[in-house]
């Protein structure tokens, strides 16, 4: 009997995942021995994320493949690991004061964020469909729990249940799509699938195409692209605000990274089959997201719809499938992370116990009571809309130039018109802040951790807008 040889594994390249797993469990164990005060857990989690970031930079000779080409550490995954660590760290910081205020006193909260981050790193680094599936599941299950972590709050419960049901459904689609692709190519490894497609050795073309469509549906659910976005507004509204911010950035970035690997890197030759479909999804996401946001009077729902429209822009990068698209995806997600955490940070600041102040009216006259907060909010909103000199503009410029390079002029024109529509509702918030009289007193407790997150985000948004060069160079380095 021949011995089964162990597949080659590069442990150093796996360090980020291992560190995250260790720290996640450490948080769980430490939680057993401490009392009500959870600040130690915050400290451990942040240390873990910092170590992850450092360890992700350990490898110089990229890409490194492990597990027979099922897991890769390349430029894309390192950059995304960086984004995940930043966004998770911001999410933890933003939660500290919020959790105290809302009485979320569970240690699992922090370990779930770490495990979710672990899932994201796995997802962004996997080059095998089974690994992709595992990554998505780790992320999703952590998020189901996080969304419902306020057990006494019915809204939170509703959000969790809705997210779980629809998410499970989407997973089904995804898995089915993967099965069909496996059936028609005989492998789950993306590299080999690409080879099979390149040599035109697909066993059954209809099965393959069906699989691709199902994959798009599955990923569409995960990133909340129209027409699979229906869960997003309810879940965003119901989940605790820091969790909302968290799931608007990291998991979405990870899913898009995997989506990019499958579509743009593995199946560019099949683009005739998925390109049109993805264009439709992208255009619909932009339109429905933006038009939907106009109708909203609740800031969290507004931001949920706006995030749907941002997915529309991001899909353009995947459609472009050229050398610029991966780097533009990275830059956009980093910029988006800062903008989203900044905005949600201010949303959290405005609330207090039992009174979240999520209606747009609650922002009336903010500029006259708290000019600095209103100004930072304005910066984040205009950046989301894509106004220079802010990060959102450079990010959009990046994606649009990737698309125009391939000649997608109409798609880009639709995207910029959507940016104009989006200005309408971002301006509406600004109108409330600057041009209306206050309707009631503001009770803003300037909690230090939340302020720190806002300050970091504001710095990031402006810095990436005015001096984006280092980050662009980093993103384009491959």
């Amino acid at each position, binding site marked *: 009997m021949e011995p089964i040889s162990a597949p080659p594994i590069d442990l150093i390249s796996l360090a980020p995942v291992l560190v995250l797993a260790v720290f996640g469990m450490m948080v769980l164990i430490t939680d057993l021995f401490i009392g009500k005060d959870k600040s130690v857990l915050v400290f451990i989690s942040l240390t873990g994320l910092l170590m992850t970031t450092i360890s992700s930079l350990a490898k110089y000779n990229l890409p490194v493949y492990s597990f027979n080409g099922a897991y890769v550490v390349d430029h894309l995954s390192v950059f995304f690991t960086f984004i995940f660590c930043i966004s998770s760290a911001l999410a933890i910081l933003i939660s500290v004061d919020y959790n105290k205020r809302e009485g979320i006193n569970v240690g699992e909260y922090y370990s779930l964020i770490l495990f979710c981050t672990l899932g994201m790193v796995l997802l962004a680094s996997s080059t095998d469909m089974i690994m992709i599936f595992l990554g998505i599941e780790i992320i999703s299950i952590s998020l189901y729990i996080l969304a419902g972590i306020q057990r006494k709050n019915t809204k939170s419960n509703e959000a969790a249940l809705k997210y779980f049901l629809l998410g499970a459904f989407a997973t089904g689609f995804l898995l089915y799509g993967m099965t069909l692709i496996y059936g028609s190519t005989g492998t789950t490894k993306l590299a080999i699938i690409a080879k099979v497609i390149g040599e035109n050795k697909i066993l059954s073309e209809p099965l393959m195409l069906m699989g691709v469509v199902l994959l798009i549906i599955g990923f569409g659910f995960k990133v909340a692209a129209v027409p699979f976005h229906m869960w997003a507004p309810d879940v965003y509204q119901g989940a605790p605000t820091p969790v909302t911010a968290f799931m608007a950035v990291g998991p979405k970035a990870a899913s898009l990274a995997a989506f990019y690997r499958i579509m743009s890197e593995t199946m560019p030759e099949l683009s005739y089959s998925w390109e049109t479909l993805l264009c439709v999804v992208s255009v619909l996401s932009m339109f429905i997201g933006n038009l939907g946001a106009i109708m909203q009077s609740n800031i969290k729902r507004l931001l949920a719809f706006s995030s749907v429209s941002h997915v529309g822009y991001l899909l353009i990068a995947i459609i472009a499938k050229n050398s610029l698209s991966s780097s533009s995806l990275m830059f956009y997600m980093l910029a988006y992370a800062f903008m989203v955490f900044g905005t949600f940070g201010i949303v959290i600041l405005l609330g207090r116990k039992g009174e979240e102040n999520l209606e747009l009216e609650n922002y009336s006259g903010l*500029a*006259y009571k708290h*000019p600095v907060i209103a100004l930072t909010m*304005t910066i984040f909103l*205009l950046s989301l809309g894509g*106004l*220079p*000199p802010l990060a959102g*503009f450079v990010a959009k*410029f990046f994606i*649009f*130039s990737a698309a*125009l*390079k391939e000649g997608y*002029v109409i798609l*880009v*024109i639709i995207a*910029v*018109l959507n*940016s*104009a529509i989006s*200005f*309408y509702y971002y*301006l509406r918030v600004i*109108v409330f802040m*600057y*041009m209306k009289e206050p309707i009631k007193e503001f009770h803003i407790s300037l909690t230090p951790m939340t302020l720190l997150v806002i300050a970091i985000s504001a710095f990031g948004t402006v810095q990436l807008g005015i001096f*984006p*060069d280092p980050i*662009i*160079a980093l993103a*384009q380095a491959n």
Partner: protein
Amino acid sequence: MYLTFLTFLPLLGAILLTLIPRDEVGAIKQTALAFAVTDFVLSVFLWTNFDLTTHEMQFEYSVPWITSWGINYHVGLDGISLLLYVMTTFLTMISIIASWGVTKYIREYMIAFLALSTGMLGVFISLDMFLFYFFWEFQLVPMYIIIGVWGGPRRVYAAVKFFLYTAVGSLLMLVAIIWIYKAIEEQTGVATTDLIFITENLELPLAPQKWLFLAFFLAFAIKVPMFPFHTWLPDAHVQAPTAGSVILAGVLLKMGTYGFLRFNLPLFPHASYEFMPMIAWLSIIGIVYGALVSLVQEDLKKLVAYSSVSHLGFVMIGIFALNHYGIQGALIQNINHGISTGALFLLVGMIYDRRHTREIKEFGGLAKVMPKYTVCFMIIALSSIGLPGMNGFVGEFLILLGVFQNSGMWAACATSGVIFAACYILWMFQRVMFQKLDNPKNENLPDMNTRELITIIPLIVLVFWIGLYPKPFMKTFDATVEHLLVKVNPDNFRPVKPGSSHSKHAKLIKIEDIARLNHQ
């Protein structure tokens, strides 16, 4: 570097203002004024040091900004932008003096104005498309805030409309900019958004030229505003505070005409020729329509706002006469409109401060109670009509001369605008200043005070200066216009006729075309 310093000086002032406590109203106003005056005085040195003999960019400064994309911070002035630059600093100063009476959130007001000033100045000096877009959008926010916070009763509507109109236009321009960025990379192998490099090296066939022209056209035509994209203007003007209107009319609209001269003509000369009749007719419609609508306005400010549509129609038709007289006239008319209409808005603002109404029928016989005001108003009104000896005449005369060389028909139609202008301005003047003083509320109106005189008198001086001796102004853009006309000369892109004297140049272009086709 000097130019950069001047451009960011107001922003520096704005940042400094945030440090002054909110209640120190006097200090806030004085600091803002000090920065505006310094900026103006220093910018006059640009004019005196300006080399009139060359069309090259002057006071140039270029440093790499986003090296990965070949984007530079590249600024400079030439004949087209010099006067607009100086006028911007000048009108900013005037506006700040004119805003002395503002009481609501004065610190934020001044910050917005100074930030706006930096944005506008940046637009005029940018020689990099990315940088240009950067400033172009940047100035939107302070203006939006100025209209939306310190404006009239329907200010929110007007502010949002202003923002969205401009945003739609400029976003399509952004697509065009990125397209050019990609095209120049394909053609020359250099990825850059540097305007000078692109102007010299970009070679486009007619079809893409037309599309790109239209994308830029939309952005600038909305800003100018040309008929039928003018509908945001009356709202914005009427709702904006006085100083906001002055800047809006004096500088922001000029950014549109400036854009045509800086981008559309040199980058897409062939398309400019193709679209010349369309733009000429749109301008003529604008001229006549603006004048006719002004005629029936009940509100003084609305009247002035619509007259802007008419005046800017003149500027546009002058630019698209595509000859020396036309473009020179358009450039000087740019300045004239800034002076005359700016002054009209100031004057209307003064009467509004006193009576809190701008309805024409509320007034009558003001000449008796406010003689100084009436004289100033009359001078400005006549300059707006274009009376010989005043600035308006020089501009309109040159423009019509230029247009006449192209088409007598266009010139005839456009001239009717001058007549209508006389009608609406003089009729309004008669109803407000003369007739019987029958409204008791008007009997005790105070005449202009010193501060108000300070804002108006420099403008009146300029009215006569340009009207009687325009040479120092005209000289600044002579060389640049000359060069621009070489660039848009139809010989550069006319199809080759056998034996034509230009066949050599045409052949050159053809060879490049073939090379490009092969490349593709």
